[in-house]
C-alpha cells in the first residue's frame, strides 16, 4: 500500500515478479550461468547504488526475503508470479509454476499465480496445461517466446502450434497472456524483437488480453502502433520503469508515448523482482511528472488518477480483483500491521 502525503491509499498490484533459482547448483551449463549474469547486469546497471545486491544474493533468494521486499519494505499489496522454465539452462527449471505455487501457499492473499506453456511441447504440453489450470486455478500464463528448446531457439505466437495452445488456454478459462519479447527468436536474419506476431494473435483471439512485457522495448514505436490498433493489447512497464532513475528524460518519453498512443487504462506496473525492488521504483514513480515541454507537445500528463490505474487498478480489472475485499483479506492475515506500527510512530 502506498500512502500519499495527503493520506490517500493506493492499492498496488505488481504485474511482473519472479521467485527464481539461478544459483550455480541449479545451472545446467554455461547458458544458465550467462542467463542469470545477464539479468544481474540489468540489475546492477539500472539500480541506484544503495539498492544493489551481490551476485550471490541475486542468484537465489528465499521466500521470506521476497515477501518482505515486495510487501513490507516495498509498497506492493499483491504480486503476479510469472513462471519461466528454461529447462535447457537449469536442472530444476528457473522459476517453475511448482516453485511459485509453494510461495503462494505461504502467502495466499498476496499472490496471483500465472503458469506457462510452450507450443513446442505438443500434446504433452496441452495435457500439462490442462492439469496446471485445474490444480492451480490459473487465469493467466507467461510466454517466453525466446526460450531455447534443444535445436530450437524460440517460437512465434503466430505459429500454427501457438494457435492450438491459445485456443486450448482460452477454453480452459485463461484470460491473460503475458508475453516477453526476447531477442533470440528465429529466424536469426530477421529483426528478432519484432512485435508483429502479437498483432496477429490479438486480432484472432479477442477473448484474451495480451500484456506485452517491457512494452516491446526497444521497439516502442512498433509496439505503440499495434497496441493502438488492438483493443486487447496492454503494455507492462517492467524494464522500462527503472530508467526513471538512470535516464529520467528517456522514461518521460516512454510514458508520454504510451499515454498518447495506448492511454492510461492499458499500462501495467511491474517491478520484475528480483531484478528490481518495488520500494525505490514506486517512490520515484509517485514523485515523477512528465516535463512540461513534453506534456505540452504530446498532451500526456501523469496525474494521480493515472498513476493509480497503472499501479493497481488496471491489473485488478484484468484479474478480477475486488480491491476492498482483498484489503480485508490482507489485513486479516496481518499484512498491514507494519503500516499501523509506522503510522503510530509518526
Amino acid at each position: 500500500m502506498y500512502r500519499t502525503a495527503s493520506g490517500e491509499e493506493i492499492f498496488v498490484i505488481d504485474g511482473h515478479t519472479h521467485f527464481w533459482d539461478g544459483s550455480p547448483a541449479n545451472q545446467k551449463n554455461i547458458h544458465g550461468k550467462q542467463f542469470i549474469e545477464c539479468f544481474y547486469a540489468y540489475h546492477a546497471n539500472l539500480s541506484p547504488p544503495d539498492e544493489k545486491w551481490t551476485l550471490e544474493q541475486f542468484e537465489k533468494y528465499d521466500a521470506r526475503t521476497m515477501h518482505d521486499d515486495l510487501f513490507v519494505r516495498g509498497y506492493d499489496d499483491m504480486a503476479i508470479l510469472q513462471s519461466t522454465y528454461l529447462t535447457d539452462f537449469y536442472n530444476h527449471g528457473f522459476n517453475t509454476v511448482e516453485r511459485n505455487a509453494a510461495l503462494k501457499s505461504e502467502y495466499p492473499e498476496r499472490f496471483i499465480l500465472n503458469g506457462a506453456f510452450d507450443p513446442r511441447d505438443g500434446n504433452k504440453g496441452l495435457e500439462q496445461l490442462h492439469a496446471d489450470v485445474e490444480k492451480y486455478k490459473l487465469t493467466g500464463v507467461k510466454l517466453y517466446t525466446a526460450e531455447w528448446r534443444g535445436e530450437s531457439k524460440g517460437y512465434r505466437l503466430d505459429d500454427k502450434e501457438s494457435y492450438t495452445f491459445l485456443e486450448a488456454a482460452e477454453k480452459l478459462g485463461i484470460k491473460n497472456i503475458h508475453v516477453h519479447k526476447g531477442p533470440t527468436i528465429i529466424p536469426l536474419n530477421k529483426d528478432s524483437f519484432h512485435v508483429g506476431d502479437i498483432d496477429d494473435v490479438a486480432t484472432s483471439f479477442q477473448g484474451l488480453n495480451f500484456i506485452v512485457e517491457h512494452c516491446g522495448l526497444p521497439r516502442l514505436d512498433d509496439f505503440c502502433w499495434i497496441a493502438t490498433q488492438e483493443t486487447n493489447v496492454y503494455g507492462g512497464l517492467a524494464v522500462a520503469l527503472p530508467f526513471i532513475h538512470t535516464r529520467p528524460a528517456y522514461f518521460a518519453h516512454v510514458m508520454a508515448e504510451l499515454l498518447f498512443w495506448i492511454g492510461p487504462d492499458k499500462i501495467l506496473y511491474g517491478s520484475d523482482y528480483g531484478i528490481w525492488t518495488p520500494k525505490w521504483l514506486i517512490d520515484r514513480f509517485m514523485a515523477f511528472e512528465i516535463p512540461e515541454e513534453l506534456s505540452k507537445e504530446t498532451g500526456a500528463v501523469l496525474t494521480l488518477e493515472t498513476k493509480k490505474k497503472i499501479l493497481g487498478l488496471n491489473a485488478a480489472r484484468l484479474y478480477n480483483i475486488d480491491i476492498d475485499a482483498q484489503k480485508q483479506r490482507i489485513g486479516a492475515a496481518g499484512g498491514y500491521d507494519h503500516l499501523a506500527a509506522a503510522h503510530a510512530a509518526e
Partner: protein
Amino acid sequence: MTAVTIADLEAEVWRALETITDPELDESVTDLKFVTGVDVDAGYRVHIGFRLPTYWCAANFSFLMADDMRTAVLQLPWVRSVEVTLGEHMYADKINTGLKEGRSFEETFGEEADGDLVEVRRTFLLKALQRRQAALLAHLIDQGFAPTMLVDLTYHELAALDLDQAGARLVARYLERRPVVAGANAGLAFVDVEGQPLQAETLAAYVRALRRVDVNAEFNSALCRGLLHVRFDTETPLTSRRAKPQDQTQRAPV
C-alpha cells in the same frame, strides 16, 4: 617499410574500425568499446578482438559487425588476412568459424536463418537515416533556417552550407546515410524514407515523429553501454597485446 612501425599499422586498423557502426545503435564499434584489441603480426596478418554487452546479443547484428570490420580492414593495402574473434557469446564458435572461413551469414547459420541479412540491414540503415535527419533538421530549425527553405534545399546546397562545428558534423553524418534512399528526388537534401519530398507546413510535426525512432535508440544505447560496463569494466583503458597502452576513446590522431 623501415619508417612504419607495427604501432602505426595498428593505428591504421583502429581508424578503419572507427567507420564501422553497430547497425542498431548507429554508433561506432570503437566508441561503443566493442573492440578489445588490435594486433598486427610480422606477416601483416591482423587479429581483432571483439566483445558485446551480453552473451545473448542478436546473432545477426553480431555477425554483421564482425563481417563489416573484416571487410573494412581488408581494404588496407598491406593487410594479408584479418581474423575477427568474438568472445563470450552464445554463437561465438559458430560466428568465429564462419568468419574465419569467409562464409556468409546464411552459410554460417544454415536453417536457423531463412534468408540473408539484406532486409534487416536496410531496415536499420533507414532508422539510422531517420535519426541523423531528425537531429540535423532540429539543429537547422533551431539555427533559424526556414522550413520553406529546408524542404527545397538540394543535396549540394546542404553540403555547402556554412555551419558551426556541431552543424557541420551533423551534416556529414547525415550525408553519409542520405544515399540509402535513392529515387526520383535524389537531388534533394531531405526526403522521407519513401523518397518523397518533405512539406514545409508539416516539417515540425515530421521531426517530432522521427524522435520516436530516436527514443528507442537512446534506450538501446544507454542499455548496451551499461550492460557492457557491468560485464567488462569499461572504465579501465584497454591494453594492446603488444604492451603499448591503447585507450580507444582518447587516441591522438596519427
